[in-house]
């Protein structure tokens, strides 16, 4: 209950004010003078507060959105990284698959047993041209066995333990291979030279050998089956003593790219060297 006349007067004033406002408004709401006056009075403040609110809201939502974008960006980057890894893995597997398919074709073409081996290391000091494969005596790989890839001859097994073997490459001077020029049928002995190529020696002086001729194994050394590609003749010259011709040979195999090889599981001297086999191969 109101305690004094003053309080009653204040209450009545407010009620009267309410009535004035109510009855001063016309039929259309918001058009009354009090409303207009009030709006005019409040508009700058309201506008200021609202624009500040809007700005803060915009900044806030931008921040929240950025947080989301940041997370999304991170997730997408992770996904890109994963996909890149998957792609690299698939490319690696595809290349491996292609190489293995070539080796498998070569294995089918050979009429002797062979085994696929993976290259696991190379010569420790680089003075010699050797590499290491992951097959040894446990898999039937023994010294003196021929090692090939689809492109041609790689080398010969020189040492083997139960788990791994050492292969001397065609480009090593310690390795000699009985060869034949495919076009002229001339024979020669091929050995490596220290500058990464090979030299075909002891070719008869009357030979019509010329650069570009294909060199294949003759099978006469009893290690390499007959007719396997070795490389192409680079240049021809007379030997030191002038009794034979010599030819530099560019190997068919790129030795730095080898990852898998085929080891021919044949005994020394155990290959068929009848003429015509290389054409069949």
């Amino acid at each position, binding site marked *: 209950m109101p305690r004094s006349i003053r309080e009653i007067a204040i209450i009545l004033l407010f009620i009267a004010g309410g009535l004035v406002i109510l009855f001063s408004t016309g039929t259309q709401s918001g058009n009354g003078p009090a409303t207009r006056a009030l709006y005019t009075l409040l508009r700058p403040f309201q506008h200021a507060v609202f624009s500040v609110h809007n700005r803060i809201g915009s900044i806030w939502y931008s921040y929240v959105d950025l947080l989301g974008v940041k997370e999304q960006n991170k997730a997408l980057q992770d996904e890109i990284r994963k996909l890149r890894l998957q792609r690299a893995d698939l490319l690696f597997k595809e290349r491996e698959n292609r190489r293995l398919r070539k080796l498998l074709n070569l294995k089918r073409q050979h009429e002797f047993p062979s085994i696929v081996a993976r290259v696991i*290391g*190379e*010569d*420790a*000091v*680089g*003075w*010699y*041209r*050797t590499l*290491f494969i992951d097959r040894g005596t446990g898999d039937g790989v023994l010294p003196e066995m021929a090692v090939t890839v689809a492109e041609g001859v790689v080398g010969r097994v*020189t*040492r083997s333990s139960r788990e791994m073997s*050492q292969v*001397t490459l065609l480009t*090593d*001077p*310690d390795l000699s291979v009985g060869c034949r020029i495919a076009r002229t049928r001339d024979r020669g002995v091929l*050995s490596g*030279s*220290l*500058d*990464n190529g090979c030299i075909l*020696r002891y070719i008869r002086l009357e030979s019509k050998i010329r650069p570009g001729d294909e060199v294949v194994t003759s099978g006469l050394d009893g290690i390499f089956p007959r007719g396997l590609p070795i490389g192409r003749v680079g240049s021809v010259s007379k030997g030191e003593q002038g009794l034979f011709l010599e030819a530099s040979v560019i190997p068919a195999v790129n030795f*730095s790219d080898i990852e898998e090889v085929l080891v021919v599981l044949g005994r020394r001297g155990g290959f068929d060297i009848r003429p015509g086999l290389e054409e069949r191969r």
Partner: protein
Amino acid sequence: MKAFLFIALGGILTIIVQTSAVGLIVPAAYKPDIMLILVVWVSLRPAMVAGIAFAFVGGILVDLFSGSPTGLFALVYCLIFVASSSANSALEINRPIGRVLVIFAAALGSGGAVVLTRRLAGPVDTGIHMVSVILVKALITALTSLIVFPILDRSWARYAKQVGER
């Protein structure tokens, strides 16, 4: 014994690195001989018996993991060990420049020995190309020692602290 264990582990690690990772960085023909660096490092330390034993075993390891006739690197490394050890006691070469020069000379000697044995075994090119390969390889090995020596020094210091070796 503890010192020998350290250098034996170093030797095994070296042969693994030389047959795999080094080939990815340097072409095979110019590969640095890290085992030779290890032999020279050992020769500059007082453990004479362990050192020569390591030079021999390290050489055999290299012989087994390269196409060299077995015993060639065992002999070459033993000779390098003795020469380097004697040079160190006479000239105090255990300084960076001295070490690099010793490695360069040792690598030249090692390369010369390899080419000589190859020449005796069969016809190989021993002309200017071969001389340049020996020189470049020796230079690469000497420069590699600038990286390998501090690693060995630091690893040895840590190992010695751990096991109480001087």
